[in-house]
């Protein structure tokens, strides 16, 4: 097990990258602490699989270094890195039985037969396939095959890191929960460094200690689920996480006041010297409809999703969402909205600006 350091790392799939846009993965410096569970979250094509393949050594970066502990493994082949990886689609060895599949990584490393047998048994119990151990892997269902792939990834105890590339895409929803819970308990038990790539925020937020959000080849924020929710460092994090996403409203900010189309809004902190592309961000959870207070808003429709209501509205030409409690009545006279000042973030060119206490 080891700490993984990415130093000045960048990757481009074209041989002669010139512009920044040529890079699938823009320059990044990053440390993955030993024994933590990370989720790598982002939309499709944001470079998260590229990053994972660089860490596992299936891909060599165009620039920069990767360190495992203190040793440089940038150009080390996959086999020397001692990592395990599970892919999006099941990879099983068709002609082998389930047992042989699970034992394969251990056998290739010349482990003792008794040890192999006990590990295989333990893993089979974990993925719930003890009864099918002596079946041929060919002809099993896709989710059974993916469980075998997961099992093969977890069968070695001494790996430096466990990498998962959207491993639960093909699994049934109820099985997803079960496997994810098992992955978490496995993490608590053995303390492997785990990196879990996904585009599903629920999966990321429930699995990981720390979530790394990627956008257009860049890591835009790394933090606990709470940090991502309360203080998104980038507007992308704001609307990618949360359902519905954060309201981003163009505004002019001076001191502790924000001006939206001439209307004034108080902020909790003061900001100086902001000009150009400035916006405020408020989670729908911290917006409230009112009959008397706040700024005028135009309600378009109300969606009742069961545990709460989502109000879609037009706010000075910007579409915003507001979350109201299930038992709240929305009357036609509620045409004003207030925002909780403590939960308003200010963004300049899409990046969050830290204010000073006013």
């Amino acid at each position, binding site marked *: 097990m080891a700490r993984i350091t990415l130093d000045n790392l960048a990757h481009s799939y074209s041989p002669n990258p010139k512009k920044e846009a040529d890079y699938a993965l823009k320059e990044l410096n990053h440390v993955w602490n030993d024994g933590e569970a990370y989720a790598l979250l982002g939309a499709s094509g944001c470079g998260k699989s590229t990053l994972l393949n660089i860490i596992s050594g*299936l891909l060599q970066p165009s620039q920069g270094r990767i360190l495992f502990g203190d040793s440089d493994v940038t150009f080390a082949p996959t086999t020397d890195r001692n990592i395990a*990886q599970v892919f999006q689609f099941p*990879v099983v*060895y*068709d*002609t082998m039985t389930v047992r042989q599949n699970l034992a394969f990584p251990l056998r290739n*490393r010349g482990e003792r037969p008794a040890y192999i047998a006990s590990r295989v048994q333990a893993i089979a119990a974990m993925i719930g396939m003890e009864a099918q151990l002596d079946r*041929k892997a060919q002809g099993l269902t896709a989710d059974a095959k993916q469980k075998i*792939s997961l099992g093969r990834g977890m069968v070695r105890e001494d790996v430096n890191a466990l990498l998962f590339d959207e491993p639960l895409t093909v699994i049934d929803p109820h099985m997803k929960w079960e496997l994810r819970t098992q992955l978490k308990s496995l993490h608590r038990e053995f303390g492997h460094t785990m990196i879990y790539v996904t585009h599903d925020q629920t999966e990321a937020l429930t699995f990981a200690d720390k979530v790394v959000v990627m956008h257009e080849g860049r890591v835009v924020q790394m933090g606990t689920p709470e940090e991502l929710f309360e203080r998104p460092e980038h507007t992308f994090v704001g609307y990618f996480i949360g359902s519905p996403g954060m309201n981003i409203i163009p505004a002019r900010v001076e001191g502790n006041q924000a001006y939206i189309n001439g209307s004034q809004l108080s902020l909790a902190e003061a900001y100086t010297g902001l000009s150009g592309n400035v916006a405020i961000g408020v989670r729908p959870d911290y917006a409230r409809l009112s009959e008397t207070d706040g700024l005028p808003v135009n309600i378009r429709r109300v969606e009742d999703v069961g545990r709460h209501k989502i109000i879609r509205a037009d706010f000075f030409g910007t579409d915003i969402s507001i979350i109201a409690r299930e038992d709240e009545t929305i009357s036609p006279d509620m045409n004003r909205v207030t925002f909780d000042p403590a939960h308003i973030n200010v963004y300049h060119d899409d990046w969050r600006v830290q204010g000073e206490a006013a």
Partner: protein
Amino acid sequence: MEKTVNQKAWFLVLPVLVLVAFSAVIPLMTVVNYSVQDTFGNNEFYWAGLEWFSEMLDSERMWNALSRQLVFSAIILAIEVPLGIFVALNMPKKGFWASLCLVLMALPLLVPWNVVGTIWQIFGRVDIGLLGYTLDKIGIPYNYTQDFFAAWATVIIMDVWHWTSLVALLAYAGLQSIPDAYYQAAKIDQASRLAVFRFIELPKMQGVLMIAILLRFMDSFMIYTEPFVVTGGGPGNSTTFLSIDLVKMALGQFDLGPAAAFSIMYFLVILLISWVFYTVMTNLEKREGA
């Protein structure tokens, strides 16, 4: 409501029936007809029963041709299948060189049979052929018109030259269909190159290899043109395979009865062996799936 019955649809099938009758059924039945009759000229035929069949079964000449044929097919399968797989494994996976390799590999398949025969016939000649002349000059005795071994070697190498591409292209198609994740997973599992071949590539190629073996077997079992052009079945009868013998009998000697009986048995043997191949291989697949 009653279901309407309309038998007129049968007329729509008629063209196919006529076509199949003229192209397959009638010619085959003509052969069957010859095989049970004898003639002494003047277009007068006499019933001969199964006499020709029993004569052919007792004929040493046919058994010799059959065993030569089996040895030939066995040798070329044993060379072309592993060689084809080896070539496919070493072909580039994408880019310009992959396209170039594919075109080069496909070339021998586009050359007509008798041209292949002519190419090798000249190539192997000791007086003007590049191969024959060179071998002769460096002191290796080589003369496919007189030497039994040289004749067989020429015919086999010619077939390998002509048809290994087919096996290679089929195997290559099988290899291309393997997703990258399999190779990546194998790397992470620290599988050796041999294990990758044994547990990933070979199982994924199984289907196309079955087709390749079946095609190569049937084709090689019916081979006629190329050895006929190169050796004419000689020296002696050493490269007289079934088809060559059959043509000699039917057209050379005009023994229509025995030749017809021979044809029918030849046909049945190919059918039988292909069926055995197919059944064994599909069963193999099923058992693995169970």
